[in-house]
């Protein structure tokens, strides 16, 4: 069903490429072009301005590679607490849940009761897993 829809869209786009439609077709890209131009200008001008105006007082810390607060060069055999992985996994789990909820929310009217019940079931399954994780103390930090 969905495939057919996507294919139709692709075909429709191709048909619009005929010369008669071409002017209106290209016109719709103008805002995009403007945005790309402003983006390029902003990025390049910031780098150039910083290079021209910025003072140069280098320290050891400033010159090292930026690694989000980690030291860039050290032993590779460092051990992490397994709790980091648990938290990361929980984060991804609920992140994915949100990803599923956006299209459902957009199509809420069309999907109706069926979609609502399906989403509810999905949430119940996810939530029961969450209860398990909390009860087992997986999120207790010490």
């Amino acid at each position, binding site marked *: 069903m969905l495939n057919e829809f996507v294919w139709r869209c692709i075909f429709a786009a191709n048909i619009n490429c005929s010369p008669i439609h071409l002017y209106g077709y290209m016109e719709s890209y103008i805002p995009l072009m403007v945005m790309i131009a402003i983006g390029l200008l902003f990025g390049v001008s910031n780098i150039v301005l910083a290079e021209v105006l910025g003072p140069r007082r280098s320290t050891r810390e400033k010159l090292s590679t930026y690694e989000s607060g980690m030291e860039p060069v050290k032993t590779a055999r460092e051990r992490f607490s397994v709790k980091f992985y648990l938290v990361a996994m929980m984060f991804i789990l609920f992140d994915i849940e949100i990803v599923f909820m956006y299209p459902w929310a957009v199509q809420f009217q069309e999907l109706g009761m069926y979609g609502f019940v399906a989403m509810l079931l999905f949430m119940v*399954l996810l939530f029961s897993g969450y209860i*398990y994780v909390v009860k087992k103390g997986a999120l207790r930090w010490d």
Partner: protein
Amino acid sequence: MMPALFQVLPLVVIWLALGAVGIVIQAYVRNTKLVFGYYLGTLALTAILAVVTAGAKGTMFSGMITTGGYANFFDVLFCSAGILSMIAARPYLQRLDGELDEFYTLLVSAVTGMMLMAHSNHMLVTFIGVELMSISFYVMSGFLRSDIRSVEAALKYFLLGAFASGFLVYGMALIYGATGSLEFGAIGSAVVSDALRFPVLFAIGATLLVIGFCFKIAAFPFHQWAPDVYEGAPTAVTAFMSTGGKAAAFSALIPIASVVMAGDSVVTGQMQLMVAIVSAVTMLVGNISAIAQSNVKRMLAYSSIAHAGYMLMGIVNGTTSGSEAIVFYATAYTFMQIGAFVIVGILEREEGGHLQLDDYAGLGKRQPVLAALMSIFLFSLAGIPPLGGFFGKYLLFVSAIDAGFTWLTIVAVASSVISVWFYLGLVVKMYFTEPSGDTSESPSGIAAITLAVSTVAVIALGIVPGWITSVIRSWPPMLTP
């Protein structure tokens, strides 16, 4: 909506019982006996529902799930394998001090994944089923956390399994690119006619898909992980994943093969030849390598590779008689292999002790019942009448000959003869050599139930095979593209 939902009741029930209820129970109650009983009941209820809904053939959820037919037969098979393995696993894990509630949860979630594979009518559903099953298996094979071999098995299985999933997904993506659909029926109609616009793309995709499944069923040349994983994993887990996992992969492969290798498509000939060669080499490699093993678990692992080769023979011709033969063989194989592994588990000692062939010397005198049952399972695995394994092989051989693959049947018969060497070697060891070393008794506990059921099933499948084949015929496949 309600009568339609009735069709998928087995899937819905096991899903909710596992995800919404089982996990919450475990969060609040720390009672292994309760969890064990609860999941046993869940599996039994699911099997009963699968029998009840077997007649309700159709598709659900926009054609993503098929119901009725083979899928329900496989549901019953997976649930039986799950129940038998659970019963055998409890005394085994208690003895090795590794029992946790979560083991049973993982086992049931593996069964759920298998059922999803059997019910699938869409590549994505197949993939979700494969992953749900595989991830449960990764954790289960590393369940004895203090045993280094178990951890090694889990890591190896995980790395190679993840790699295989990549092949599977890439194959599916290319098939989607070539046919414009992931649904089996639509792929079938795109392939059968001359409408296939990108035959090369499709051939590459189909090959990658077959490679992915070859990893999962441990077929040559992707079988290397199986002996290590089957040896290292807890024996109760090996019993389950070498039977249920293999049957599940075949339950997903049957409908896929019937569309990918459908009658008059452009790639049918090459695909059939490829699968036939894989099948022939797999059974030879499995059986010849098994001869050289001195560890019983490794020997049974190589023999399970060979059995995957036999079952691939049913895929080659892609006809109904081939799928029927696979279903019968998968049923017989599940019971005989679970039986054999459970006996190995009963005899096993801590830290992988008592697993060598020499440890089985004189078992016929020490533990006559266990030795007799082990002999029945080994005879059935070797394909000696009148046991279940014989009729499974017979059906597979006949279907391959009907499809015109006589040479494949000759290879299969030859490799069966080779396999008799090591199966009977173990029997000879048990009955005609003197016991040596550790000769302590091994109580079997409730695993005796598993052994009794498996023995009865293996003998019944051999004596009245017509009964089970008529059941298989009366639940024919949903999918005829």
